[in-house]
């Protein structure tokens, strides 16, 4: 009987054993620890420097200077509008890339990521060539509707959206690929066409991914400098966003530049921190 028992009980023996409890007791190799520490220092030190040089005593007075608030308001507005534009255009594009097989899909995906690697200044020049007054579309917009895009607040939004949209598309496409497309099949068996499936099933399922993409997109738009100054210029109250204000202040008034930088830093960190736990925490 006992020998029979061992035969019957065999499956238990192959059951996975509990893993060793902790790896913390093993030493971390110095060859990894040293560059890791240097890397962290390299990222944190400039921010610490910014804080160290901040003129804390005159800070309240500087914050209320009209130019600062104007630039901040413009930055927040244009970054938000650019993000909305990216959502309206980018989410459908991401869906197309993730869900529809069409010829040239790989090329389209490559094209979408071009603004990621393109120097923003080049992006600004390219925007000028198309939407400028004598540009391909710009001249037509000007003559037909009297719309002038460059050197306007709308131009700022366009420049920011151009640079930031790939971030959103990549995040949303990743979320769509990760989402179980069988839910969409289930929706179809219940009579939902592709549009209702998208709005009622797909979008709610990938909402966290869309939110994460929108945050990345917004942060990128908020910091946009190169394309904006090239395409929209530097008019206080109209196209002078925070990064541009920082850059210009650097030439005349270092303290002002530091204060503006501190504000940008605070806003970005606050937004990221408030959303991090909910949407973009690492797995």
């Amino acid at each position, binding site marked *: 009987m006992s020998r*029979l028992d061992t035969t*019957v009980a065999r499956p238990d023996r192959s059951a996975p054993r509990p893993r060793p409890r902790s790896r913390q007791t093993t030493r971390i190799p110095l060859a990894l620890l040293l560059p890791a520490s240097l890397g962290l220092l390299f990222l944190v030190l400039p921010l610490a420097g910014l804080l160290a040089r901040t003129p804390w005593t005159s800070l309240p007075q500087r914050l209320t200077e009209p130019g600062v608030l104007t630039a901040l308001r413009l930055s927040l507005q244009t970054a938000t509008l650019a993000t909305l534009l990216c959502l309206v255009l980018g989410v459908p594009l991401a869906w197309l890339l993730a869900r529809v097989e069409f010829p040239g899909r790989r090329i389209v995906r490559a094209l979408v990521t071009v603004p990621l690697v393109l120097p923003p200044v080049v992006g600004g020049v390219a925007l000028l060539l198309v939407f400028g007054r004598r540009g391909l579309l710009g001249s037509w917009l000007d003559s037909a509707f009297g719309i002038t895009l460059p050197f306007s607040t709308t131009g700022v939004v366009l420049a920011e959206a151009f640079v930031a949209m790939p971030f959103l598309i990549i995040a949303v496409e990743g979320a769509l690929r990760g989402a179980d497309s069988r839910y969409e*099949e*289930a*929706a*179809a*068996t*219940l009579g*939902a066409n592709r549009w209702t499936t998208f709005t009622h099933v797909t979008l709610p*399922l990938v909402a966290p991914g869309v939110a994460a993409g929108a945050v990345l997109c917004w942060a990128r738009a908020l910091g946009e400098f190169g394309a904006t100054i090239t395409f929209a210029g530097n008019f206080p109250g109209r196209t002078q966003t925070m990064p541009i204000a920082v850059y210009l202040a650097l030439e005349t008034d270092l303290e002002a530049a530091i204060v503006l930088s501190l504000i940008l830093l605070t806003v970005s960190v606050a937004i990221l921190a408030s959303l991090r736990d909910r949407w973009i925490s690492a797995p």
Partner: protein
Amino acid sequence: MTTDVTVHPAERHLTGPLLDARLVVERGTFRLDLPLTINPGEVVALLGPNGAGKSTALRALAGLLSLSAGHLTLAGRELDNPSRRTWTPTEQRRIGVVFQDYLLFPHLSALDNIAFGPRRRGVNRQQARRQAADWLERMGLAEHARRKPRQLSGGQAQRIALARALAVDPALLLLDEPLAALDARTRLDTRAQLQQHLAAHRGATLLVTHDPLDALVLADRLVIIEHGQVVQEGDAATITAQPRTDYVARLVGLNLYRGRASGHTVLLTDTFRLTTAEQHDGDVFVAFPPSAVALHPNHPDGSPRNSWPATITGIQPNGDNLRVQLAGPIDLAADITPLAAAQLHLVPGQRVWAAVKATETRAYPAAPQ
């Protein structure tokens, strides 16, 4: 035939099968070719081993993949026919599907999951929610209306999924392994409830499963496929009594052999003979349950004429008994009690004598009647 003419055309097609299909799907080297008809109110179980083409058939019926050839007609409407270039997308088919892991929409409450189908088919919001509430009531889940799927137990989620599929009043209800995700205890209760709901469903039902018990309890008729082909079809009694392939025999728990009969003797291999109760001539199947096999330490004297030496290759628990796998002139399974096993000191590799009474065997012609 003359009475047929007087029948109203609209009623006439209701007298025929609700689903009339020949599903041909080709994918690389795999080819599914499955003729399938289901009458109104009939429940057909599609059984087969993994990779036999069960899921492919279900997806073709649901319109989640298209036929390579053949045809598919549901309630008098041709949904898919490649030769005539007819194609109806999934959302326009009168079907309901219960998926294996249910696929309840995680962002919607139980009520809204059920109301989803009626809403998409043009019922207004209020009416759809009322229908959904009725279904919850019928499923005994009225108090769970506002729960999200992740707050439901497996059995509850299964019933919500069934209600969601039935809420659109489908002409064809498709069930993909509807009980596979449940633990044994819940499965028992849920199976009984499922049986009631299927009995009330007036449309056709196709149950895809690899669990013979589900098929036997829930279905009126069984269609068994292997490698994309139908290997056996019929009611539960016929199939359990006369399996025609090894898969079906294992499914219904029988030892099955093919051989040449001559009177009461069936030649299974070149030299191995079994004596059977029935008389036949020609190609036959011989089947007997593992419980009909007796094991002896030595050559048994006396009655059973079918006895031969065999080697034990494996022992597994099987319900209250032990299932002993034996090799020898023929491979077979034997069920014995733990007490008998202990008395015989059975271990793998041991030589024993296997014996089967002729009266416990069943022989039937191999050519389908």
